[in-house]
């Protein structure tokens, strides 16, 4: 009997093996159904066509053409490099865009940022209804960040950076619009800064260029990505600046940060994972729009919300949080911020104030094209002549 049971068990196990079923009983594999009909880039494009044509309206065709064309880069200048790369690049026609801003705004820059309307701060769209666009409140930027770009309409490319005599590379090529969140973060002398989703390291490097950070905490969930980040930092920043007392690189789950370190950081950069619009349109490998990552893509806004909330919790009262993405999607931008402000107030008792970034948009309108009339935060939209972005950012200040 036991033997019979055994054989039956064995048979049941064996049933899955295809070689034992007769050919005529075998189920023919429906390979045509399982195979993706379209490549992921096409799916991404279809998705964008459906959502953004509604969201951006008239602007979408131009943004679409820009997204599908070659992007422009900015050269984030390495202040730790000893060669005079800036002069070299400027001779080729590059301009340092943070200094190349609109003149009428510049005088205000020296003043302290004023905290306007604290009692209104809980409401999300407080400062958008400012009728007088000329009297934009002043805005402070992180110092020392230099990013060189070719002027509007110029499609020249940068050469790969060369190392100086100490092995430090001269510049880091990245989307120039990605420097904006770092500029807007307004890092001041001695600040404790947290970069919650740091890899691959462009923004971290930009933060380090300020040379005024007291302690920088760098985190990314993925270990492989943090190791890449470490390599980037090592090839740009000399060792003494990467010592234990100055920098910490971790691979924790960013959403749990509120439980690890509460009320610690003066500045928090939350550059969340998103649908990375430009990348998704260009690269089929590991594309977030591929069929097998659908679930992950659906959960993105949820993850983004959790990360932003963790960032808010990690910030000390009076500290500032900057939320940024590289997508145009409203669901991943505005909605997440709105939801986060609401949840922070309801569940955690944290009151937040939205810092108006429109002066920043006004300052750099020569270099970037900004989306008009955004109710919350600012967004760089790609334009074929200034093919940077998309970058969305929104700055929050923690009140209590």
């Amino acid at each position, binding site marked *: 009997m036991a033997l019979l049971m055994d054989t039956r068990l064995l048979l049941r196990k064996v049933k899955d093996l295809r070689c034992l079923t007769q050919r005529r009983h075998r189920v023919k594999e429906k390979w045509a159904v399982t195979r993706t009909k379209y490549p992921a880039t096409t799916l991404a494009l279809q998705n964008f066509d459906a959502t953004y044509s509604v969201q951006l309206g008239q602007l979408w065709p*131009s943004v679409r053409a820009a997204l599908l*064309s070659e992007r422009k880069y900015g050269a984030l200048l390495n202040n730790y490099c000893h060669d005079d790369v800036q002069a070299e690049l400027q001779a080729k026609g590059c301009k340092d865009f943070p200094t190349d801003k609109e003149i009428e705004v510049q005088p205000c820059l020296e003043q302290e940022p004023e905290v306007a309307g604290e009692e209104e701060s809980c409401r999300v769209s407080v400062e958008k209804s400012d009728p007088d666009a000329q009297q934009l409140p002043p805005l402070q930027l992180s110092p020392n960040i230099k990013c060189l770009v070719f002027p509007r309409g110029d*499609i020249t490319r940068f050469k790969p950076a060369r190392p100086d005599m100490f092995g430090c590379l001269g510049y880091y090529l990245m989307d120039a619009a990605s420097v904006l969140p770092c500029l807007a973060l307004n890092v001041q002398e001695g600040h404790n800064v947290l970069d919650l989703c740091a890899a691959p390291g462009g923004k971290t490097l930009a933060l380090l260029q300020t040379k005024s950070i007291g302690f920088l905490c760098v985190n990314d969930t993925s270990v492989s990505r943090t190791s890449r980040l470490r390599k980037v930092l090592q090839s740009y920043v000399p060792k003494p600046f990467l010592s234990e007392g100055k920098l910490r690189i971790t691979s924790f789950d960013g959403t749990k940060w509120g439980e690890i370190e509460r009320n610690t950081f003066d500045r928090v950069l939350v550059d969340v994972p998103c649908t990375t619009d430009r990348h998704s349109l260009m690269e089929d490998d590991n594309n977030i729009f591929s069929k097998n990552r659908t679930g992950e893509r659906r959960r993105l806004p949820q993850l983004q919300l959790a990360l932003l909330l963790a960032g808010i919790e990690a910030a000390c009262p009076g500290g500032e949080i900057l939320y940024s993405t590289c997508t145009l999607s409203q669901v991943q931008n505005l909605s997440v911020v709105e939801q986060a402000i609401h949840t922070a107030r309801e569940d955690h008792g944290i009151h937040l104030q939205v810092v108006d970034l429109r002066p920043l948009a006004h300052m750099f309108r020569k270099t970037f094209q900004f989306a008009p009339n955004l109710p919350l935060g600012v967004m760089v939209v790609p334009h074929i*002549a200034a093919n940077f972005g998309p970058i969305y950012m929104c700055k929050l200040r923690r009140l209590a």
Partner: protein
Amino acid sequence: MGTRVAASQVLRWTLRNATSVFSPLQFGRCLLQPLCTGGRLLCSSTSHGPLQPTLHDRELNPLSRQPVTELSLPSLVDMGFTDSQAEQMYEATSKLRGTSTSKHALSTLTALFVLGLNPSSVQKILEKCPELYTVTESQFQQRIGNMRKLGLVEGSLQRVVSHYPQILTVPVKTVKNVVLFLKEKCLFTFQQVTDLLRDSPAVVLEDRGQLEYKFQYVYFRMGIKQAEMVKSRLFRYTLEEVRCRHCFLERRGLYQTPDKKGQTMIINPKLDSILHFDQDTFLTNVANASAEEYEVFQRLMAREWLEEEQLQGNIEADSDDDEEEDEEDEETGGKSGYRKKRKR
């Protein structure tokens, strides 16, 4: 009437010199045949009877006694050219004087007049394409005959010749090959080929590969059938123009390649409206874009295609390397050339 007079003048003048230049047999073969094809012309001119060279005509023109085939100023005026036109023509032909080609000048004029073109357009044609002076009489007959055979009827024929006189410098064989190519590789019908030749005769001299690429690009990438290609005079435009405008629209989401059933999600603009407008009208009416955008786009595209071509060149070079090792030096030389270009 002007043409008829001119033709008869040429005829008279030719007859006058005929004895010295051609043997009667040759003359019959070479000259009468085109005249017969333009039947009406010959009949009317002969019936009026100015064909016989009169005595005083000869005496007036002492040049005519000499056994020369070159054109003189008065003879040009005789043919119906105005003084200034005749002078220009004379200058043009005098450059050829003494060369072997000079003796064809007369036959060229004859052939053109026989087509029914008036002196001023003849002059314009020859100005546009002086190579016509070098074409022999029999070549003229063959080529014009061939064009008639291809369905270019009177009227169209004259239009083609006056718009694109270079077509008469192309050997019959080349034209036939192009027509064969259009019919067999691109599946145009006979009538469509005729229309193509009439509207864009320059196809006969276009590079075959380029032509095929253009056709396939429009057929496969844009999903457009032959009839519409003919209607929109596709072959008048360069591949770059077509490709650039199409890609611009495609990236803006205004053009989609139709699927197997010829369906698209959006309504594509007609090929006609993509190609025919000048740039500004195209941008405002079809693409809805600014001039700045299109200008930058064109530069980006030019670079993209250049790189694509280089990439293909490299791939071809690599595959060649595997096959033949003898040419290795050449291939690597070519590759390093590409690399140099890319570095710039």
